């Protein structure tokens, strides 16, 4: 993986020193909170409901075992022994104390990590397909481009005060696992007729208050044009973006108000101006970066032991069926480690679990770890013969849950258990859904299903693109949950449809059960997934199940 250059190292260290002094000045009273707040946000430090929260970037979701161990150390030393992995491939510590934050940032810098640009109206952590460099369906590893974008956007003087935050996601595969269509800029790699790799550039996607799917402004962008083109998009946005109204400030509104054709024309015109200014140094840098992402030296060994174990052990088989994905090397598998044990907090890992993951990555995973926007941890390169041992160790550490892609593999934002913006809780809703359906032993029968929960309209939990989306609101001083159906965050992205009136906290699990029982009753065959069935029959049968039976709850 990429290692910091002297420049990166000096920049991050300088920022730690700077912020340490700023914290000192805040504590001695020479800075007011109004003065300090933008400074702490620039360094990822929020003040939440019950405590401070430090958001640390995991660029394109790639983390080394050494870094993972350091995150565990930080959790043990300055927090409460765990970390929360988020939908933006960040990790959040929920309990740091202000005087300790400089030391935490120092500990992060020791392993080439930081919290810079994880908040504020700037280009945020660039996210990527968590299977990058391993997926069987991949055109090219997108991470060198993500790293190039990271270096370009970090402390970029023109883009530190954008109208609003700006999120870029990139995938190297036709199967979009990075939700690129719901980002300010989405980049999807594919090949042109000549076989050359390039990007489809999508602009103006986003969830939140006004959910929108991005429009394609360029069908095929040669890889060498990436930086000038992205710079052109940001430049246009920086000029046109609405600074007068926070709720209309994202680029999706700019795209909508300007019109797809006109904004495409403006971007292309700006690109024509910028392109000649890029003299080729970006491509030299990219070449260096590429070397850092060379594939590991894959082992060539028999996989008979895996096949035999798969046949013999039903627990292992169940886990292999849900948690493994196809690797481009047929002897290997991509392992998704579920951070969604039934009843646990989605995305949380204890410091002990982080250390187990680090050890396993070193022993069996070519020292590579990823965090996914779906709040799980990935071991992207595991030889199949090592899977039985790996699974046994995961199982002992409480990390062996076989539910990836199933009902209980729920995305949930921190909600009103932590977040000061939240209007309702998310985590306990996820916990209740997972334990309820586990007790019914229904989730394998239901099959592939993505439930996504947000505790406010800002949609950190991606509820709009959940097959079932749940949005927690405050309705007249009571938690109320609105349901959307049929959302999709992949290459066939679509925003889900609202079913109608919301449900109280204690009504939401029974409501979801009614939807899923209706699905089981109406699917043509077990292989028809919830999303396929929804696309076939539409909202009405689910609405009927959801609302008409409300009065007969006791009979159900």
């Amino acid at each position, binding site marked *: 993986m990429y290692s910091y250059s002297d420049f990166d190292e000096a920049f991050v260290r300088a920022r730690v020193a700077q912020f340490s002094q700023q914290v000192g000045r*805040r*504590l*001695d*009273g020479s800075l*007011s*909170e109004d003065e300090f707040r933008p400074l702490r946000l620039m360094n990822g430090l929020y*003040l*939440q*409901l*019950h*405590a*401070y929260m430090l958001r640390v970037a995991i660029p394109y979701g790639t983390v080394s075992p050494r870094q993972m161990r350091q995150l565990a150390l930080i959790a043990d030393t300055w927090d*409460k022994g765990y970390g929360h992995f988020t939908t933006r491939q960040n990790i959040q510590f*929920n*309990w*740091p*104390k*202000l*005087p300790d934050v400089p030391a935490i940032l120092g500990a992060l810098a020791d392993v080439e990590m930081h919290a810079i640009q994880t908040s504020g109206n700037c280009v945020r952590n660039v996210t990527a397909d968590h299977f990058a460099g391993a997926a069987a369906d991949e055109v090219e590893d997108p991470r060198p481009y993500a790293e190039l974008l990271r270096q370009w956007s970090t402390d970029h003087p023109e883009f530190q005060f954008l109208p609003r935050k700006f999120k870029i996601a990139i995938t190297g595969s036709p199967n979009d696992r990075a939700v690129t269509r719901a980002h300010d800029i989405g980049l999807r790699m594919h090949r042109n007729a000549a076989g050359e790799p390039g990007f489809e550039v999508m602009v103006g996607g986003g969830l939140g208050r006004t959910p929108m799917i991005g429009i394609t402004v360029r069908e095929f962008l040669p890889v060498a044009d990436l930086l000038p083109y992205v710079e052109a998009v940001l430049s246009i946005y920086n000029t046109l973006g609405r600074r007068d109204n926070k709720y209309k400030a994202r680029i999706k509104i700019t795209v909508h108000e300007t019109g797809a054709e006109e904004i495409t024309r403006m971007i292309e015109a700006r690109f024509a101006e910028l392109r000649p200014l890029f003299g080729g140094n970006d491509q030299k840098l990219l070449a260096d970066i590429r070397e850092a992402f060379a594939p590991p030296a894959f082992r060539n060994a028999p996989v008979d032991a895996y096949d035999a174990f798969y046949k013999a052990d039903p627990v292992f088989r169940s886990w292999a069926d849900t948690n493994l994905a196809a690797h481009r090397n047929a002897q290997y598998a991509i392992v998704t480690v579920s951070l969604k044990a039934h009843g646990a*907090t989605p995305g949380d890992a204890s410091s002990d679990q982080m250390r187990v993951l680090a050890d396993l990555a070193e022993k069996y995973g070519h020292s590579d770890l990823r965090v996914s926007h779906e709040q799980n941890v990935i071991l992207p390169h595991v030889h199949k013969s090592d899977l039985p041992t790996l699974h046994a160790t995961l199982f002992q550490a409480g990390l062996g849950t076989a539910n990836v892609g199933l009902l209980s593999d729920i995305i949930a934002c921190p909600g*009103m*258990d*932590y977040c000061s913006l939240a209007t309702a*809780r998310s*985590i*306990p809703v996820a*916990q209740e859904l997972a334990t309820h359906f586990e007790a019914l032993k229904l989730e394998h029968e239901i099959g592939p299903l993505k439930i996504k929960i947000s505790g406010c309209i800002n949609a950190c939990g991606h509820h709009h693109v959940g097959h079932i989306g749940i949005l927690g609101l*405050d309705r007249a*001083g*009571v*938690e109320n949950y609105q349901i959307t159906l049929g959302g999709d965050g992949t290459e066939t992205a679509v925003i889900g449809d609202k079913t109608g009136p919301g449900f109280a906290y204690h009504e939401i699990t029974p409501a979801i059960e009614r939807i899923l029982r209706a699905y089981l009753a109406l699917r043509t065959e077990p292989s028809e997934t919830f999303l396929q069935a929804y696309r076939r029959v539409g909202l009405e049968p689910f609405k009927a199940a959801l609302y008409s039976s409300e009065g007969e709850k006791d009979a159900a």
Partner: protein
Amino acid sequence: MNRRFTPKVVTANRLREGDVVYLTADDRWSQLHNEAELIEDEAHAQLRLLHAAAQRRLVVGAYLADAKPGPNGPEPTHFREEFRTRGPSNYNHGKQADLAN
């Protein structure tokens, strides 16, 4: 005509620790909601809020939160404020743990 003033407490987060505190009638910051001063007069509420906001080395983000009288002192009326008196629901962390010790 004056609308009836909903009683308030002054609440904030401590600067160093970040935890939730309430302004008491004798100018302390208490971790307990029921020790807060229940303010029933709007003008007095504004004065108390100014007093809180001036303590910038101690607290952050002071605001007035709705409250009601209870047998042991003021109680929150909104679920958000109720959560703030306790901590998160997924772990025994925050006030619910700190105050039990």
